[in-house]
């Protein structure tokens, strides 16, 4: 057998090796099984306290208004909640499918849920799996609703120009996201907050909204 092989011209020898490797590949199936991983505890503990791991709702709302697209916003809530209302440009990914999702390890990822706990858990999972730039949205959906879409403002009579500017900005941002400024101050709860209705079937839009040109390649 070996003699026959040795007698073949090199190109055929290489061809045979390639076929054997190909057949073995069929049995291997998928090269990577990403369910187990090792965690660099030191690195994680050093970055865990950093502010870079969180984004405030104000920052995020500014980015969306400016059309900044260099991040991926991930909604960790249930699909029903997501369909009801979500932050524009977000995509719904459940916790269990997080590491199997389309998210790339070198992308900037921002996570949010109703509060910080779920988002923090997801943060750890992604960090442990080697995702580099993962942040969570501070106070999650609650803060988004209360501080961006329906912000309250107790600046009253606009005592100073600065306060008035802040007031106007808040109002405009809220309007952009389909909400309104709550000027009642303390009686916040009396205002009925109807979250803006979503117009488009988000699923279709969100998968492909990253219009960025290829950065690498031939």
């Amino acid at each position, binding site marked *: 057998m070996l003699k026959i092989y040795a007698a073949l011209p090199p190109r055929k020898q290489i*061809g045979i090796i*390639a*076929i054997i*490797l*190909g*057949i*073995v*590949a*069929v*049995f*291997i*199936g*998928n*090269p*990577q099984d*990403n369910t187990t991983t090792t965690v660099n505890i030191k690195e994680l503990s050093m970055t865990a306290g950093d502010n870079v791991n969180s984004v405030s709702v104000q920052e995020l709302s500014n980015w969306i208004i400016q059309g900044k697209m260099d991040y991926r916003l991930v909604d960790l809530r249930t699909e029903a909640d997501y369909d009801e209302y979500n932050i524009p440009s977000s995509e719904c990914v459940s916790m269990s499918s997080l590491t199997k999702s*389309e998210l*790339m*390890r*070198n992308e900037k990822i921002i996570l949010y849920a109703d509060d910080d706990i779920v988002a923090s858990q997801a943060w750890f999972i992604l960090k442990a799996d*080697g995702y*580099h730039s993962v942040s969570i949205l501070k106070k999650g959906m609650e803060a988004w609703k209360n501080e961006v879409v329906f912000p309250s403002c107790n600046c009253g009579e606009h005592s100073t120009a600065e306060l008035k500017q802040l007031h106007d900005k808040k109002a405009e941002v809220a309007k952009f996201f389909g909400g309104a400024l709550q000027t009642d101050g303390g009686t916040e709860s009396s205002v009925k907050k109807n979250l803006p209705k979503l117009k488009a079937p988000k699923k279709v839009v969100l*998968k*492909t909204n*990253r*219009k960025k040109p*290829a*950065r*690498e*390649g*031939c």
Partner: protein
Amino acid sequence: MTAPFYKFGLFNDEVSFIIAFVLGLAFGFVFERGGFGSGRMLAAQFYFTDMRVFKVMFTAIVVAMIGLFYLSWIGFIDLSLIYFGDTFIMPQIVGGLILGVGFVIGGYCPGTSTVAIATGRLDAIVYLLGGAFGIFVFGEVFPYISDFFYSTPMGRITLPELFGIDYGIIVFAVILLAIAGFTAADWGEKFMASKKEGK
């Protein structure tokens, strides 16, 4: 430790430039020695008289594919860190056709034209200037064609995902395809050679 190293921050930008430079030199040298620096050789692909470039390309694809597959299997390479662009099927077909036409008319692709310039070929310099002009025109008309440019998006998709089968099966299929391609290329070369003699 897993590759790719740069995205893990194992070396910084400056070092990555040096590595890119060295890799580029090696790549260009192999290209030149493989005959890719000749417009005639590249155009010959399209007339089936000398399929060397086709064979080299396909060999490179198969070697890289087998290498990546097995290196990621043993855990040395993290495939998810390797960047590749999104698929926009229609614009990419049109773009591919335009590139192919330019390829057969000019006798170079963007990479080989720079290799050919290194050996002082004037046609390659003209080709590269034409390419630069094309980039300029594309940039200027981009606002008008951007709708088409982003049409038929499929996201970042790979063949195993598209067909819902294992990577290994694709690897095997591409190897078979390559061997079939090489056999067909050999046959085409012989056929064209006999045709030439016949004349």
